[in-house]
């Protein structure tokens, strides 16, 4: 990182000094400027004519994401010595930032061609994706509850719009309305939770909250704090789509344009989970006795319920939506498993999950046509035989989602299970195994249909396919899914280091026990 050092980056950040925020927020700054650039370029291209945007817009968007990723590397090896910075400067943030960027890039890549066919090729789409990504980065990287809330809104508002981006499609609009109403509803709960925590602890700074809870001093507002934690949990549970706060998910995922669905099920979920980890596993670590049982039940109900309902879905897109809910359950297990291994397993899984889910939605896009989305199971009959590459790629993604060996999903689940057993959550581990056993049925059913049922008619799949860029992205996702199994140790080591950094916050109150004492 001598490059950034040469540009004047200090070795140690002190966020008490405002100028140091420039370095702490460098990726966000690059991303914001980039998103604005995309908007401006689009407007300059089009003037006041109503016509599709040029093909250079997605390329520019990808370039902005790449620049952001580069800026993100500036955070490597940095740490913050201040007590109350608004953003976290740690490996966890760097790692999750990369995850959001990967999710956004895959979303943009698989949207190529799709937007043109649906007649919604507009530069706003790309700018909104970038702004949503900015929101994710702010939400996942914040060290202050208010900052988390603002990040959440910066992320959600563009997503509300993106879900309804296909204005001509009543399903898209309807999904957007539902998602918007329920999203705002749930962020009301989240905000109320923040207010109550603020009232109980006297600050919204996560580090401060962790220290206050860690010292164990009776602040006299136990109930206020509990209520605040509960409502915060509801808000986050909604965003990660945990049962019973999940009901918007299938509808919103189903109605949204498929690239947006991919982004929602990967980036948004990852950001919400990152905030979940920071708020609950770090800030509220010493109140674990209260929240761990609740989250335990959330995880268990989510895994079981989502997999059961997924069994009955006739639409592959909806099935993937329920699958995404089920995966939220698995990730909650990782969160509950505590300690570094749990967080490392969480990071590893979120990365694997992002790649394989986005890839799977890429195949859903490949199977769609001009006006219609071919998402029913019968639409996939014979796909594997007529389009062997698409079939093979989809099989790999589905097997990985199911957790089949030789894929990243298997290793990810293995890490979660290991962390769960080591962290004393053996019962959850058992539930996880049983639930994913059920999931095999609906994942494999798609593969069976693809390879063993004849297509509806001759040449039914003739139009299936992706443009070159999207094809490359899906292929890369495929390779990553397999490579992460064989070279799983590499990302896992990175994830472990990133997870470690989560705890290495500067601790001005020397006497305070480690925030994670509950989990060690």
């Amino acid at each position, binding site marked *: 990182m001598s490059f950034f050092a040469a540009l004047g980056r200090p070795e140690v950040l002190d966020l008490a000094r405002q100028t140091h925020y420039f370095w702490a927020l460098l990726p966000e700054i690059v991303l914001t400027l980039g998103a604005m650039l995309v908007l401006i370029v689009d407007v300059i291209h089009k003037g006041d004519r109503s016509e599709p945007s040029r093909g250079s817009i997605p390329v520019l968007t990808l370039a902005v994401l790449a620049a952001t990723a580069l800026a993100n590397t500036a955070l490597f090896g940095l740490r913050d010595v201040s007590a109350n910075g608004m953003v976290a400067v740690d490996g966890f943030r760097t790692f999750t930032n990369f995850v959001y960027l990967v999710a956004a890039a895959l979303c943009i890549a698989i949207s190529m061609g799709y937007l043109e066919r649906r007649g919604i090729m507009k530069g706003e789409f790309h700018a909104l994706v970038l702004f949503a990504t900015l929101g994710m980065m702010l939400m996942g990287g914040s060290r202050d509850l208010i900052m988390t809330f603002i990040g959440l*809104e910066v992320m959600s508002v563009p997503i509300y719009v993106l879900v309804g981006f296909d204005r001509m499609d*009543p399903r898209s609009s*309807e999904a957007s309305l539902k998602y918007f109403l329920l999203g705002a509803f749930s962020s*009301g*709960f989240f905000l109320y939770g923040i207010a109550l925590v603020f*009232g109980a602890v006297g*600050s919204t700074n996560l580090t401060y909250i962790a220290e206050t809870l860690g010292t164990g001093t009776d602040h006299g507002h136990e109930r206020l704090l509990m209520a605040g934690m509960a409502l915060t949990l509801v808000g986050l549970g909604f965003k990660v789509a945990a049962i019973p706060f999940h009901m918007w998910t299938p509808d919103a995922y189903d109605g949204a344009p498929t690239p947006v669905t991919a982004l929602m099920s990967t980036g948004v979920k990852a950001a919400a989970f990152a905030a979940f980890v920071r708020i609950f596993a770090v800030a509220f670590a010493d109140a674990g006795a209260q929240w761990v049982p609740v989250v335990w039940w959330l995880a268990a109900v989510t895994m079981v319920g989502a997999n059961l309902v997924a069994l009955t879905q006739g639409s592959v897109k909806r099935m993937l939506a329920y699958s995404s809910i089920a995966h939220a359950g698995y990730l909650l297990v990782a969160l509950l498993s505590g300690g570094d291994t749990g967080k490392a397993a969480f990071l590893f899984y979120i990365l694997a999950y992002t790649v394989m889910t986005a890839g799977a939605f890429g195949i859903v896009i490949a199977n769609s046509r001009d006006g219609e989305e071919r998402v029913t199971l019968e639409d996939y009959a014979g796909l594997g035989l007529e389009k062997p590459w698409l079939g093979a790629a989809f099989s790999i993604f589905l097997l990985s989602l199911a957790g089949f060996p030789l894929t990243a999903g298997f290793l990810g689940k293995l890490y979660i299970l290991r962390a769960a057993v080591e962290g004393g959550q053996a019962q959850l581990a058992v539930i996880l195994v049983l639930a994913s056993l059920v999931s095999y049925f609906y994942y494999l059913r798609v593969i069976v249909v693809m390879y063993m049922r004849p297509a509806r008619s001759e040449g039914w799949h003739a139009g299936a396919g992706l443009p070159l860029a999207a094809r490359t992205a899906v292929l890369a996702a495929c390779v990553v899914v397999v490579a992460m199994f064989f070279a799983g140790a590499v990302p896992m080591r990175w994830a472990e280091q990133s997870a470690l950094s989560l705890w290495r916050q500067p601790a001005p109150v020397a006497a305070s026990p480690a925030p994670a004492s509950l989990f060690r």
Partner: protein
Amino acid sequence: MQQIPLEQALGLSALLFAIGAFGVVIRRNAIILFMCIELMLNAVNLAFVAFSPRSGVQGQVFVFFVIAVAAAEAAVGLAIIISVFRHKESVDIKNFSLLRW
């Protein structure tokens, strides 16, 4: 000047919040639903202000953030409602059930 006790302010805030939440559950008009949500946000604002004397002045600052965010949400939300209205000529959410099961 007599300060309003914290408990009373919080009670009012909770009441407003509950009214908003129940409104979301029972009302069918999308715009009224949205107003209920705004009511919830304002209940939170009240709580922030109420906590402010004890927990610090940030509480009052947060209110401005919340108002700004709510404004953004309102802009987007009303646009979405208009977009939906164009399809169905209605803002009654009962009519929106293309997506279910």
